């Protein structure tokens, strides 16, 4: 006999995710992932001015704010064949680095850490011992007994007055919280520090884009001009601030985030052996700057099949297709056939149970997410996919870095294919991005010194310069949560069709026509549940993917059947 366990809402994520799992003898036998909210932003985008699409697309998500704006402007620039000035590309890259630093740190401390860290246990810690332990782990300047004592007092007060706030009803009696009190106290202190740090690092977005969340962008460049003689443009004062913020980000990532990650990981080595999921990985690629046309990549497009890192493949963009077999949409070609994003269709059609409901009909349709597949196979996207791609291609010293972390933890390479491996990969790539920011910054400064201050290409700004027939383009962006692609058709100066294939859609989709589960669904199988009412084990693995559901739910609308032609190079 199996029992159905439901976790809804999955919290500490963006958006509305529901997991249903069949449990046999205390173990998960089958799992089902469902997105339970839809807005229809792609329908809203139809008929709009392509130069404005980024602002609509950006509102797909406010946690990974910027990523949809980037994919959108890149798609429109691809369709209209616009070349972006180098300074604008560098400023965009600095903004991308910022979102990686911000998003991954916030994910680790504020969305994921409470799966491993028990703030109630931190009350038992000795602040002096905690400071000694912290100094052993990293040179972070704050690690004094007084600092830890203050944090402990703050937490104690919440507990004593019975107003635990966001920590209320955590699974604090679960036996699988394994950190000693001192390690818990360090992590809680850094949870609070990270909460303050993240208000600052986003100032790079504020300087270049005016605000965060949801900074501003421009098709053809960036909105902010560079003028060293103006107090309102990007000037030496603003650039110095950016440099300081990059240095602070490097310090926080290298001296707080990564040491904490490794320290926590060392207490949970069993989680380096479960939660793998599919073993197939896709990175659709992050262009060196903005265009995919020149074939130069910061993260090269890479497919890894069945853990075979040695025999990795390049990506064929014609092989991306989406099913709606188990999604609340109708396809005119029948629900068992997939469609390429340039040929997508949409018809919202909710066939789930009438709310309030207890269970979804997982044999029928059960999610607002479609099911993207590569070469008709489900695949995982995200930090682990990218880290494996860079490992496979031996770029940026990734092999040495991964091997060293694993060696220090006493684990084999296979340990990367796991819940904790995914979480480790996220830290490894954050280190890569923050250090690259320094390089992009120096390149920008060097251009400015040479007298190049150009940040915008206005040649194709006026829609009358565009062809009026149907043109199309796509924009790629490796977003913090994984491979993101936007696909746009423009006709008569308006958006004829707009589609987004999103990281969490890849990872959290329902089954496809062949019944193949997604990464979320596959990764939960085999998990032991200590107590189905306190499903900590499910949260650990699902959070290791960093779900973003508002991103994942989207829809397509395209009446025309046309031949798919995707040329990248």
């Amino acid at each position, binding site marked *: 006999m199996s029992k159905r366990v439901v976790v809804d809402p999955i919290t500490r994520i963006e958006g509305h995710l529901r997991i249903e799992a069949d449990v046999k003898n205390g173990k998960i036998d089958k799992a089902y992932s469902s997105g339970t909210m839809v807005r229809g932003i792609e329908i809203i985008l139809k008929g709009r001015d392509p130069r404005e699409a980024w602002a609509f697309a950006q509102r797909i998500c*406010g946690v990974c704010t910027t990523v949809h704006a980037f994919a959108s402007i890149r798609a429109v620039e691809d369709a209209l064949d616009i070349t972006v000035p180098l300074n604008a590309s560098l400023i965009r890259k600095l903004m991308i680095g910022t979102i990686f630093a911000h998003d991954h740190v916030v994910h680790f401390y504020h969305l994921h850490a409470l799966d491993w860290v028990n703030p109630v246990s931190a009350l038992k810690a000795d602040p002096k011992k905690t400071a000694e332990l912290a100094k052993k782990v990293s040179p972070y300047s704050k690690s004094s007994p007084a600092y830890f004592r203050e944090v402990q007092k703050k937490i104690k007060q919440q507990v004593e007055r019975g107003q635990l706030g966001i920590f209320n009803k955590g699974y604090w009696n679960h036996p699988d919280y394994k950190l000693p009190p001192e390690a818990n106290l360090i992590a809680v202190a850094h949870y609070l520090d990270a909460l303050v740090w993240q*208000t600052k690092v986003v100032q790079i977005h504020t300087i270049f884009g*005016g605000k965060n969340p949801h900074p501003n962008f421009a098709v053809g460049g*960036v909105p902010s001009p560079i003028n060293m003689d103006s107090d309102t443009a990007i000037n030496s004062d603003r650039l110095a601030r950016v440099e300081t913020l990059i240095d602070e980000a490097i310090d926080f990532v290298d001296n707080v985030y990564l040491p904490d990650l490794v320290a926590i990981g060392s207490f949970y080595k069993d989680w380096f052996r479960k939660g793998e999921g599919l073993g197939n990985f896709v990175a659709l690629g992050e262009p060196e700057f903005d265009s995919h046309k020149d074939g130069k990549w910061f993260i090269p497009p890479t497919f890894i099949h069945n853990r075979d890192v040695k025999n990795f493949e390049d990506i064929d963009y014609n092989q991306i297709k989406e099913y709606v077999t188990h999604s609340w949409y109708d396809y005119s070609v029948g629900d068992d056939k997939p469609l390429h994003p340039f040929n997508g269709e949409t018809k919202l059609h909710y066939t789930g149970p009438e*709310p309030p409901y207890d269970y979804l009909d997982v044999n029928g349709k059960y999610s607002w997410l479609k099911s993207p597949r590569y070469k008709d196979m489900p695949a995982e996207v995200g930090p682990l996919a990218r880290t494996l791609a860079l490992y496979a291609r031996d770029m940026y010293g990734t092999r040495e870095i991964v091997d060293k972390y694993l060696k220090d933890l006493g684990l084999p390479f296979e340990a990367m294919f796991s819940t904790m491996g995914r979480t480790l990969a996220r830290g490894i790539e954050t280190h890569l991005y923050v250090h690259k920011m320094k390089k992009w910054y120096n390149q920008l400064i060097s251009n400015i010194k040479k007298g190049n201050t150009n940040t915008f290409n206005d040649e194709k700004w006026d829609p009358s310069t565009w062809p009026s027939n149907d043109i199309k383009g796509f924009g790629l962006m490796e977003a913090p949560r994984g491979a993101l692609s936007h696909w746009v058709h423009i006709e008569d100066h*308006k958006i004829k069709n707009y589609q987004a294939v999103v990281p969490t859609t890849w990872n959290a989709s329902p089954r496809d026509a062949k019944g193949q589960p997604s990464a979320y669904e596959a990764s939960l199988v085999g998990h032991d549940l200590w107590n189905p009412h306190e499903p900590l084990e499910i949260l650990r693995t699902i959070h290791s993917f960093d779900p973003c559901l*508002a991103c994942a739910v989207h829809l397509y609308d395209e009446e025309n059947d046309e031949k798919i032609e995707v040329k990248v190079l």
Partner: protein
Amino acid sequence: MESIYDLLKKRGYSRRDFLKLAAGLTAALSLSPEMIPKVAHALETKPKPVVIWLEFQDCAGCSESFIRSTNILPTEVLLDIIDLEYHETLMAPAGEFAEASKEEAMKKYKGQYILVVEGAIPTGNAGYCTIAGRTALDQLKEAAEGAAAIMAVGSCASWNGIPGADPNPTGAISVQQALPNKTVINVPGCPPIGDVIVAVIAEYLVLGKIPKLDEMGRPVAYYGQTIHDRCYRRPFYNSGQFAESFDDEGAKNGYCLYKMGCKGPVTRNACSTIRWNGGLSFPIQSGHPCFGCAEPDFWDRGHIYTPLSVVSTGIGAKEIGTAVAVGAAAGAAVKWITNIGKKGGA
């Protein structure tokens, strides 16, 4: 119940530290310094207000903005200023324990808690947004019942926002539309400034009542003036000096962005005064025209890059206007404003 001051004293705060916090809070609320004793008194006598934060058709951008407050840091907000009993993006438990947390808080603090709502509410189909198997509308009505005050945070909750943009595929409505008989404090913006969100909550704590609202439910303190009224580029507008394209000479010199489509003249928000992320900048300061994200229907009411002077209220949301600037803003501005309430207005 213990006051916030009691809590701070126990943590070893001196009277001096405490008054510093009170002064900071007073400044954050844009109150005059004479109010510091009143704020201090409130902190000495009032328990932390309980907040229940619900998310529906949202992007969590307002939650993100909430934790970017800088006048009062998010750590102080979460540990000292409020008791956040339910917030899907931040809370530890999931599933049934999360829902139980909310139910207990609603019961224990009935008539006392602040309900914050982020995101619009779909009405087109019961299946468009469910949480724990229940519809958004059902969840909202239940939580509104025992709330002392209801705050709609962001343009989606205030006006129906992006889900409500033409053709509003899911029949999204605002909190006020979903709760026609309740007073709703609208804190619009896409997202609103983090410091404003925190200040509105803190003001309720300090003054014990909802702030003065305009006819559209917005706190007058933060939405009483247009961005144009207080824009530092206003002198260039007055002298007729405009940027016409990103990165042109006018843009490099910081001239007015009116001809590039700036909606500052018709947008009520505090961007040009409080500014963003520690008062560092705001869209216009970083070279992009304001596109009016705090106003109802801004997605459909004239294009981001079309000057107000050529935007008419009757223009189809999806027509492309060519950016040709003529005349002054005043006429168009008035037209834009008088059309308020078409879809989402209170």
